[in-house]
């Protein structure tokens, strides 16, 4: 069976607040051009288009339709959309290429998180009967999860601060990062509790941004770039939407997706962990040992553009492979409250 490779990636700067519209056009037009320039492709070469974004985030219906302006959709294109992180749009595009209906695909995600009150908007993704009418904000739900792990001894505040310190230090090398810096663990732990038991450093920033990934069937990929990052496995799983029925200190869906892709030895793992303790859960679920470099981009603690950040994890991992920094890389994306849905992909240098 033909496999699918990543051949191009571009992302916007991660910023707290753009002047742009919520349809993402201003963020997308430059990075689409960048992705085309890097691959030598043009829009006529793309067989399938798929995007991820959210109307609740944009505060308008069918916001993704306006975004289609950014890609130049005439004559009519073969296009689809998911109301999820664009990592799931990439999954749809991967399936499309495997079916043979297209041999190239362009996937993009965008989010202007600053348009509304992000933590409040995200409460609308919870159960609409017994949970969403309480408007539980995303930070409070993650804080409930963090305390379960802290009090059961599965992780400590120091473990969490170490994740933040490493992420922000790594982000110094990432020109797209919104936050970066040199902080000692002790200094971070001196900070106040902002959502007890979470401190500011435990929580990903509110970020506007966008990302683009170009995929090609394996047999076409080598004509496009010298070292494509072939996707050797990609799987996604979901845990129960009933928060109280889950063991929130573990991520069975990540574990199951990881087992299904066959992680093996990886050099790098780009994890989509919007809260420090969630990285600890993911590392355990994926069996990532000390030898694996975790989120060298700084991860989403350095910049978390909603509906694009998961796709950007796949792009970052692929970029490491395409440049030869990593032989084999893992990428993870999450969606929903407290790591409800998870996607795991493994990429390696195409031989």
């Amino acid at each position, binding site marked *: 069976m033909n496999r699918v490779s990543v051949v191009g990636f571009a992302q916007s700067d991660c910023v707290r607040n753009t*002047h*742009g*519209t*919520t349809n993402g*056009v*201003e963020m997308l*037009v430059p990075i*689409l051009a960048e992705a085309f320039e890097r691959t030598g492709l043009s*829009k006529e070469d793309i067989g399938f288009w798929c995007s991820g974004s959210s109307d*609740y985030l*944009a*505060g*308008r219906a069918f916001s993704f339709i306006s975004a*289609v*302006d*950014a*890609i*130049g*959709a*005439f004559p009519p294109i073969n296009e689809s959309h998911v109301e999820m992180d664009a990592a799931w749009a990439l999954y749809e595009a991967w399936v499309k290429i495997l079916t043979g209906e297209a041999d190239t695909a362009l996937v993009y995600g965008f989010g202007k998180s*600053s*348009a*509304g*009150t992000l*933590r*409040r*908007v995200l*409460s*609308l993704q919870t159960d*609409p*009967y*017994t*949970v*969403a*009418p*309480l*408007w*539980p*904000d995303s930070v*409070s*739900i993650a*804080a*409930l*999860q*963090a*305390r*379960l792990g802290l*009090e059961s001894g599965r992780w400590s505040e120091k473990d969490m601060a170490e994740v933040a310190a490493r992420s922000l230090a790594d982000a110094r090398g990432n020109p797209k990062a919104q936050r970066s810096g040199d902080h000692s663990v002790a200094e971070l732990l001196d900070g106040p*509790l*902002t*959502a*007890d*038991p*979470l401190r500011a450093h435990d929580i990903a920033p509110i970020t506007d941004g966008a990302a683009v990934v170009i995929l090609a069937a394996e047999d076409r990929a080598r004509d496009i770039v010298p070292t494509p990052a072939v996707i050797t496995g990609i799987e996604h799983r979901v845990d*129960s939407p*009933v*928060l*109280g*029925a889950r063991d*929130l200190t573990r991520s069975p869906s990540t574990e199951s997706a990881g087992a299904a892709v066959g992680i093996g030895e990886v050099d790098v793992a780009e994890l989509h962990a919007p809260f420090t303790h969630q990285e600890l859960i993911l590392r355990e679920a994926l069996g990532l040992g000390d030898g694996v470099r975790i989120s060298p981009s700084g991860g989403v603690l350095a910049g978390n553009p909603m509906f694009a950040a998961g796709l950007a994890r796949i792009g970052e991992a692929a970029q490491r492979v395409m440049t030869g920094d990593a032989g084999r890389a893992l990428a993870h994306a999450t969606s929903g409250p407290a790591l409800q849905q998870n996607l795991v992909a493994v990429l390696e240098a195409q031989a």
Partner: protein
Amino acid sequence: MSTEAPPLSEPLEIQFDYTRSLGPVLGRFMTGLAERRIEGVVGSDGRVHVPPVEYDPATAAPLRDFVEVGQEGTVLTWSWCADPVAGQPIQRPFAWVMVRLDGADTAMLHAVDVTSPEEMHTGMRVRVRWADEPVGHIRDIAYFLPVDAPDDNPPTSPAPPRTEHDGIMVTPIAASYQHTVSPEESRYLRALGEGKLIGQRCPRCEKVYLPPRGACPTDGVPTTTEVELPDTGIVTTFCIVNVPFLGQQITPPYVVAYILLDGADIAFLHLVRGCEADQVRMGMRVRAQWRPREEWQTSMRNIAHFEPTGEPDAPYESFAHHL
């Protein structure tokens, strides 16, 4: 060179109600709440789920075996919400909890009304504070209180949303955004405030778009060249509105038409007045009727409608490709 003003931006408030059918499981749960009774459902493994689930999480079997549980429970985990957002059960700093009610095996998410995080600990006992007038909604549980705390009177939460229909729950949604238009739309809207119509030409296909959109929808390239357009054009296609509807501002019959300005390549919707509705034709030449200058805003509303100019109609072939 002038410094451009930042894009136009306004607060945008969105409000709507979700009206949801409850079905047999959630319906029974909500009906119970209206009677100040909390019922869970027994899973295939004997675990009691509260709130009830319609299908067993492990076997997917439909669950219908209900059991009443206690109105006191134990906090399994909590977090402190120092800065509540609109709609949350308590509008001053409070604790979110996962609480396992006595007799239940799963926890429910809810709020506890205490004044500081020092009053919270995992394992603490809490009890339901009911809304004064429960209606069959999750908000009938106003929040939880420490088990020995006296009832505040009345509860600080707003009353749960009521509906006239059995088996239905209403959840009002209100969300606030800062809506920003693009730099191109801002220039377009500001120009309208001065009585001008500004479009943009695509550098590749040379089509002129009004309103300008920042990127050509055909070519996907940024559009940069601005073009001032006249306030005259043609009707490409139209319909006659005969049906009255809520909020209608004009008495039917009236004409809504696609107007293609002279020099533009995309039509926009507007009104055609100044003649009988049955006199409007495809290809008819029209001119904008502007409102009095003192009413102008940064809006297309500055043009009240379009009226026939009396010039000869445009031939069909001249606009067929715009239909």
